[in-house]
């Protein structure tokens, strides 16, 4: 489903991604772990099309389609969804309006019929249950005054509504207590399907106890330095990131020679 080949990206002239290669197939859940500043969030933002990041080299294919030439809204319509690490507050726009606009924009792009208010309401009620969210939150401005947990749940709700083919969860666990984490992870798990791929970006192994990945990759210094199964996450938890950091520094040195 997703092919990332030799992806390089800069922000403000600094190279953050330095040749990322990753293949994700439909139905798979991949976790990307790494120390702070390794480029995890940059990778997530680049895939979603944030123009703050400049792609200098490489390609990204989604079902054979060059993702990098698409605007963020087209990527969303093609099935890419990013659950933000820091969901943005939009004062003055209610959650339900925002969600319906988003869904109908995507449906328009795909040539599907738009949902009217009644059908939308029916569908949203169903999806709210998935993340145990109160529908009153939808009558408030998007994310404004939401707690950390409410914001993250709102992200998963949006994912449930837009039904992406590729969902990227960027540090969805950060700032959540264990109860909120369980609810969010539970919502994500229910959205797992053979047609859907997920990339779970996280610093801590904790989240992966609840969202169990098929593959774990370690990103250090803008490159994936190690890949493995879910046991790799446990190994990382035990040995710490310095273990892979040292290893990658040695490899770079060897490469330089």
């Amino acid at each position: 489903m997703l092919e990332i080949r030799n992806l390089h990206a800069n922000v403000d002239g600094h190279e953050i991604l330095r040749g990322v290669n990753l293949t994700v197939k439909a139905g798979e859940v991949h976790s990307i772990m790494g120390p702070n500043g390794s480029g995890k969030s940059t990778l997530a933002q680049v895939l979603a099309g944030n123009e703050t990041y400049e792609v200098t080299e490489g390609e990204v294919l989604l079902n054979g389609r060059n993702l990098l030439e698409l605007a963020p809204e087209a990527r969303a319509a093609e099935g890419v969804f990013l659950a933000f690490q820091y969901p943005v507050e939009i004062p003055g726009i209610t959650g339900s309006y925002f969600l319906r606009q988003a869904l109908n924009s995507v449906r328009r792009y795909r040539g599907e019929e738009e949902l009217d208010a009644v059908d939308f309401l029916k569908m949203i009620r169903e999806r709210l249950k998935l993340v145990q969210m109160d529908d009153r939150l939808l009558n408030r401005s998007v994310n404004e005054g939401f707690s950390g947990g409410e914001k993250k749940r709102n992200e998963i709700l949006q994912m449930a509504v837009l039904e992406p083919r590729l969902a990227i969860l960027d540090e969805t666990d950060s700032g959540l207590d264990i109860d909120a984490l369980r609810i969010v992870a539970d919502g994500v798990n229910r959205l797992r399907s053979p047609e859907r791929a997920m990339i779970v970006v996280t610093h801590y192994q904790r989240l992966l106890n609840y969202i169990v990945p098929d593959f774990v990759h370690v990103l250090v210094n803008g490159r994936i330095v190690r890949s493995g199964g879910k046991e790799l996450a446990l190994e990382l938890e035990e040995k710490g990131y310095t273990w892979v950091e040292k290893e990658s520094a040695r490899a770079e040195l060897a490469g330089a020679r």
Partner: protein
Amino acid sequence: MAVITEKNSNHYVAEFERLEKTSAGPTWFNPVRKAALAHFAEQGFPTTRHEEWRYTNVAPLARTTFRSAAPTAVPVDLDAIRPFLFGDADSTRLVFVNGHYVPELSIATGVPAKVTLANLAELLETEPDTLRPHLARYAGFETQPFIALNTAFFQDGAFIHVPRGFVCETPIHVVYLSTGGPEPVVSHPRTLIVAEEASQVTVVETYAGLNGGGYWTNAVTEIVAGDAGVVDHYRLNREHDDAYHIGAVRTQQGGHGTVTSHGLTLGGGLTRNEIHSVMNGEGGDLDLNGLYIGRGSRHIDNHLRVEHAAPHCDSREYYKGILEDSSHGVFTGRIVVHKDAQKTDAKQTNMNLLLSGNAQVDTKPQLEIFADDVKCTHGATIGQIEESEMFYLRSRGIPEKEARDLLVYAFASESIARVKIAPLREALQRLLFTGANEDRLLIEEASNP
């Protein structure tokens, strides 16, 4: 500059003399007109050297010889004014074209008999005693050349009176329409709203233009709320893009009176809105809400002066501007707290959204506080569309243009939500939010956070 000023006050003096000779109207008000003219002749047009006019250059008004607008030669029909109406087609309204009352387009019958709803030209003749205590008693012209000019020249306008203790639930719409045309003309619409003790009234004034031609509207509105009187006032500027609009609103309120005045500027070439509110009864409550939309090379100057002249009064100013292209917005908010106005609570907010590198805003709070137990706060912001918000919306599939429109709308939504008349609120939503999504239901939903 001085020469131009002199020449043009001469033009108005000559015009006044001509009108005086030809007019067959009542004479009781003439001394006031003469005094006003004398003040105008003495002051002439302000220049940007005047501190109060620093950001707004009215030289084009001083330079041009505007003739008094005549009743239109081509009759204006209902279809022409329909775009400026809201709600039901037969809702209560007074319609003026080029400053002259048009009874055929007006519906003055929708209000209860206790409410007086009439045109000033007629009342000047028939009911001088009703007008005398109020007309030109509040909008001082001694230092205000444009108010002076209006007072000297106004031909007609609306008079709304609600007696003691009466609540007029029907909103009253006053439409001042300019037809425009090949020659520069000026009209001087005058509005007087009197809500007696413990009464209530809602009035919407719409200023609109059918054609361009650089016409000038020089309007004055006086609003008086007696003790515990409630006035909800809206002033909607939908003038033609090359029109000049100078509008003065003067509000006065008694003890425990509540005045709300909304200034909504969606049109015009050069607009100056002057609002001067005096709270001279204890426990008064004042809201001045504003929304101004700059497009093209539009210039919009909102000049507010709130005077707390009695204790325990609250005032809130909430003005928001959206400026596109090479438009220019100006906000000046002066709050004056008199010596005895203890326990004053005054709040001023001016927020601006700049949508283009060429758009410009000047915003200036001015506080003059002579009492010692008061709370006065002010805040001004000038911002742009947040890239992070844009990306968030787009990452959810909302196309760039719609995302931008949505964020602009979100910025304006609180101002629109403050409009209490539902059909007017809906009309504004449509005016401000066309294109991206015209589904009214959705818009209502979006603006209701």
